Every structure is written in structure tokens, then in C-alpha cells.
């Protein structure tokens, strides 16, 4: 579709060493981020990690203490909010309550003194695009949450922003509507081809929507990467824990083999972890082994390949599509394993069963131990 609203400037965004402090709180610290033109990037992290602050710094609503905001190759630090040419959808949508849907949607164009005929045509297209045709004379309070959300989106897109900034725009919706809007938002963003920066603390939402995810923790970006990259190859314990569920075994490097590192866990078990040739830690270094629950293989004693941890099943949780085994290794560590509830292997294990737990060496990740 190549409508007027379909045009976009597709700018790239670059943050360089951004910092912002509120009193004793370092809201954002030494943050670098590159967003390529047309990409959908999520800022993901727990509450209070600085996502909103980062977004507001990009928008120009908050002045950073240090660092540069560069949009479309232009340093924006001293460009006032209303000259940045961006779009913002806030969590509560911030629709103007005294304006109709039409007046809300056309706000940006009217402030730019666009020609009335032009405004009317583009507004019509935008309303059609977000499926709000016919509601243009309603006031925001007369709309459902999802409709309000689409008005906020149309209002942004109409000004053809260089970048679309979204601060938990789906946070106020119930689960069903939220999932429908995720699909809609993503297809709209792709259709318009706009650069989007999306703030969320919902990891599933980030995985679903994003081209790339920036995981934030205490004002810093811990890792930036494609969703599968973040999930399969987390670089820190925080990232592994925040995205999905993960088992951690703390231990020490005791030896190397070609393509793998041998670890003695604190409980005394010996396990192998696949490691790239470069960057494998030296002997004696404290490390954390991370394995996703769905990568664990739970079997009867003696059946498994090494390395294998003898363990006892403590609880079996049936969740429909899968079974979750809560396990306690003979060496003391607690583990959780998921097993797909497929026809070939129905639920077999009961609490108290003695098993061995193993995994392919390449399924485990070696993470730096930051606790020690």
C-alpha cells in the first residue's frame, strides 16, 4: 500500500553514552544503542530499569546529563521536542479529551498548518488504515481501549514521524486484545516501514514483535540482539533469567576438551559445556552454566550419555501442552525440565522417581559469574 500515511522517513537512531540521574537514582547509565532504519527495536527490562527515561530522552522530553541523541544522522540534543519530527504513543494513549477522534488524529497536521484538503484526505486514509472509519466524531471517552490505542497510533502516523516511539502501548489492554493489537501493530509498522522503538517489560511481547531486543537492567543495556539470539545465547545471567526460564549451575572450570569446557559444579558434579574456540575461560575461573528447561533430557538411570546428573523428581506439574519436572540433583542443585506432551512419550515420571538429567553440550551456555 502506498498511501500518504504509508510514506515514512525511515530514520536511524543512535544513542551515544547517554546518562541521566534523578537525585540518587542513576536512571540511565552510559547507554549506547543503534537502531537501523525501518527496524522494530524493543527496550525490554524490569520495572524501573530506565526504559521510559531512555524513550523520553529520544523524544526530547528529558534532557540527558551526558551523551548524544542522533536521529537520521543529526545530533538532536539541542533540538526542541516539537522540532524533532517524532511520534509517541504513551501507555495511557494521552488522547486529547476535548477533541473528537478526527481532531485528535489531525492535531499534528493542523499544528503544522497543512492545507485543509490535504489534512482531510490523509486523515481519512489514516482512519481507514487503523479501521476507525465512522468513529471520527466520537470523543476519546466514548471509545474502547483498543480503539483509543488505534487513534493514538493514527495520530502519530499522520505526521509521518522519522521514528515511532511506543511506551508500553498495549499495557492497558486485556490479554486477548493485547495479542490482537500486537499483530496489528507489527503489520502496520511493516506496512509503513517506519523505525519503531518499543518499550515493554513483557518478554513475550518483545520476542513476538521485535527485529531486535535491547535488554536493560539498572539503567544499562545488557545485551542487544535478535529475539532468538537473546534467547539462545544470553550473555549474562540477568538476560538468561529475564527472558524465559533458565537453570543455573554455579561452578569452576576444571579442564578443556576440543569444543567444550569441563565444569565442576559447586555441588561436585562434572558437566561439559560447548564453548567457541575463542573466549573460553581459563582453568580455575568461576562460571555459571545456563541451560533452558526444554533442553534438558530426563531419563531413567543408566540410559543417558554423559555428562549426566543423577537427580530425584520432586514435583510434576502438568500444564497441558507440556509437563514440568521439578528436580533435585544428587549434588543439591535444583533444576526444572520441560517435556513436550507429545503422543510418542506420554507423562511417565512420578514424584520421587530417580532419574538422570543430561543435555547436549551445545545446549548449555557458559556465563560469567558476577556474584563472586
Amino acid at each position, binding site marked *: 500500500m502506498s498511501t500518504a500515511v504509508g510514506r515514512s522517513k525511515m530514520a536511524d537512531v543512535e544513542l551515544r553514552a547517554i546518562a541521566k540521574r534523578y537525585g540518587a537514582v542513576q536512571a540511565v547509565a552510559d547507554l549506547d544503542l543503534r537502531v537501523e532504519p525501518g527496524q522494530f527495536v524493543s527496550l525490554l527490562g524490569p520495572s524501573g530499569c530506565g526504559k521510559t527515561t531512555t524513550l523520553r530522552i529520544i*523524544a526530547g522530553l528529558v534532557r540527558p546529563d551526558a551523551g548524544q541523541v542522533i536521529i537520521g544522522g543529526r545530533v538532536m540534543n539541542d533540538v526542541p521536542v516539537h522540532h524533532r519530527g517524532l511520534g*509517541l504513543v504513551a501507555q495511557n494513549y494521552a488522547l486529547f479529551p476535548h477533541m473528537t477522534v478526527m481532531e485528535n488524529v489531525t*492535531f499534528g497536521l493542523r499544528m*503544522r498548518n497543512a492545507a485543509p484538503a490535504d489534512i482531510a484526505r490523509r486523515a481519512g486514509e489514516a482512519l481507514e488504515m487503523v479501521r476507525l472509519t465512522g468513529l471520527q466524531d466520537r470523543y476519546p471517552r466514548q471509545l474502547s481501549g483498543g480503539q483509543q490505542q488505534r487513534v493514538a497510533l493514527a495520530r502519530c502516523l499522520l505526521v509521518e514521524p522519522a521514528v515511532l516511539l511506543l511506551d508500553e502501548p498495549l499495557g492497558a489492554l486485556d490479554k486477548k486484545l493485547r495479542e490482537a493489537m500486537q499483530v496489528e501493530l507489527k503489520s502496520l509498522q511493516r506496512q509503513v516501514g517506519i523505525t519503531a522503538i518499543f518499550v515493554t517489560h513483557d518478554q513475550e511481547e518483545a520476542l513476538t514483535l521485535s527485529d531486535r531486543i535491547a535488554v536493560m537492567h539498572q539503567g544499562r543495556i545488557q545485551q542487544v540482539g535478535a529475539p532468538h539470539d537473546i534467547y539462545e545465547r544470553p550473555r549474562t545471567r540477568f538476560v538468561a533469567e529475564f527472558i524465559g526460564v533458565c537453570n543455573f549451575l554455579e561452578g569452576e572450570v576444571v579442564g578443556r576438551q576440543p569444543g567444550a569446557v569441563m565444569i565442576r559444579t559447586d555441588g561436585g558434579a562434572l558437566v561439559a559445556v560447548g564453548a567457541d574456540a575463542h573466549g573460553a575461560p581459563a582453568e580455575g575461573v568461576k562460571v555459571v552454566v545456563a541451560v533452558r528447561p526444554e533442553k534438558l533430557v530426563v531419563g531413567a538411570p543408566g540410559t543417558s550419555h554423559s555428562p549426566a546428573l543423577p537427580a530425584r523428581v520432586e514435583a510434576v506439574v502438568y500444564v497441558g501442552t507440556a509437563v514440568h519436572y521439578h528436580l533435585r540433583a544428587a549434588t543439591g542443585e535444583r533444576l526444572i525440565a520441560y517435556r513436550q506432551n507429545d503422543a510418542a512419550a506420554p507423562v511417565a515420571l512420578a514424584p520421587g522417581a530417580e532419574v538422570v538429567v543430561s543435555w547436549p553440550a551445545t545446549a548449555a551456555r557458559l556465563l560469567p559469574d558476577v556474584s563472586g
Partner: protein
Amino acid sequence: MARRDEPVILRLYCAAVLAFLSLPIVVAVGVAFGSDKIARFPPAALSLRWFGVALSNPTFVTALGNSVVLATLTTLLTIVIGLPAAMALVRHRLPAQGALETFLLSPLSLPGVLFGVAMLFFLGASGFGLAGWGILAAHVVIAVPYVLRTTLAVYRGLDRGLEETAGVLGASPWQTFWHVTLPLLRPGLVAGGLFAFLTSFDNVPVSIFLTTARTTTLPVTIMSYLVNQDFDPIVGAISAVQVALVLGLLVLLDRIYGIGQITSLGGQ
């Protein structure tokens, strides 16, 4: 407004309060419609005679005109002062913010007579004398808190994100003020402005110290008339005119904004 499921006793209670509040006015105004020279309620025979007498009395007419002009100017000035003050107090971090707000609202808790005397001494000692703007300044001081209070209440309840979003969408600070902030503050301004007008329009304790024969206001004139003569239908008639003006103003505002919206803000 009484709903149908309200208990009878509550309805009776409300009726009694309303009667208590309005009956004195009904009597004072009703007297004006009599034809007798002596104030009597209910009037023995109906006549508009005393309205004619009151409205051809130059003292009353001048005072009425003064009061209308004074209350109107007071309202405009309190808005011009109260609106920016409220905006500064809500959206900016000022030194001694709390103290500043308390100071601006303090005339509310100052006895009128005391303030009137103080203004009188100030105008005398500073050599300004009792020019018309002296009383205007005094009325603005006592009326600003009303506009400030209602506007602060509305502004504090307003999502800051609205103004921020307007900015991101390309509205300059001035456009944001004009298209977003001002329309959303209007209920507070109208309610506060109404209180300011009424405060000025029926003020006696401050006005009585600061008016001259030329700048006298209607309430002051009525009061001195009552001191020198007895209560007679002329006073009733001019009071009726005053009440009618205020009612007219309320009806006008109701037509434009809806009185429910205005009164609901007064209590915040």
C-alpha cells in the same frame, strides 16, 4: 438533585436547608413588588413602582454601574494573574514553592475588615490615595485565590502526558498552551472567575474603606442607605436588580458550560 430513591427524611432536610437559604432573599425581593411606601411581605398590592424609583435614583444607578465594571475588571485581572501563577506552580519547580502557593491563597483566610483597613492605610501612607484602581487592586487581591484554587485543582488533575504528546506531535509551546492546556483548564477558570466576580460584586468589608462618593459600589451604597433610612421597598428593588444580574450570569454560564461542571470543581 433529589433522586427518586432518596429517603424522605433526607429530602425534607434538603428542602428545609434550601428554604432557610432562600427565604430571606424571597422576602427582600418580594417587598420590592409592593405598592406601599412601607416594606411589607407579602405585599398588599403588586406594583413595579419601586423599581422605577430605584433605577431613577442616581446614587444607586452609579453604584450599580461601578459594581458591574469593578467586578468585571476584577474577574479579568484575577484570571490574567491566577492562570500563569497556577501554571508556574504546577509545571515548574520554583524556589519556596509551597510558601509561594500559601502566600497567594492567604487572602482567603484574612478578615476582610482587617485587609480593608490595611489597604486604606497603605494607599494613604504611600500617597496613592483613593483612586479607582486602589479598590480594583484590593478586589483582585481577595479574588485571586478563588481563580488560583480552582485552576490549580484542574491543572493538578491533568495528565502531563497530554501537553508532552502535543509537543512531540509538533505543537510549539504556545500552540500547546492554546490548543491543549487552555481548553482543558477552562472549567477551572470559569468556576474561579465566577467566584471572583461574585466576591467583588457583593463585597462590603473591604470596599467600605476604599470607596469615595464617585467610586462607591452597590453593596456599600445599600448599606449606608440602610444605616441612614429604614428598610424600604427601594432597597428591595435595587437588591432584586442585583440578584437578577447574578442569576442572569449563572444562567448564561450554565448555557455555555453546564453549571454541574462548574460547581463540581468548587469543592476540590
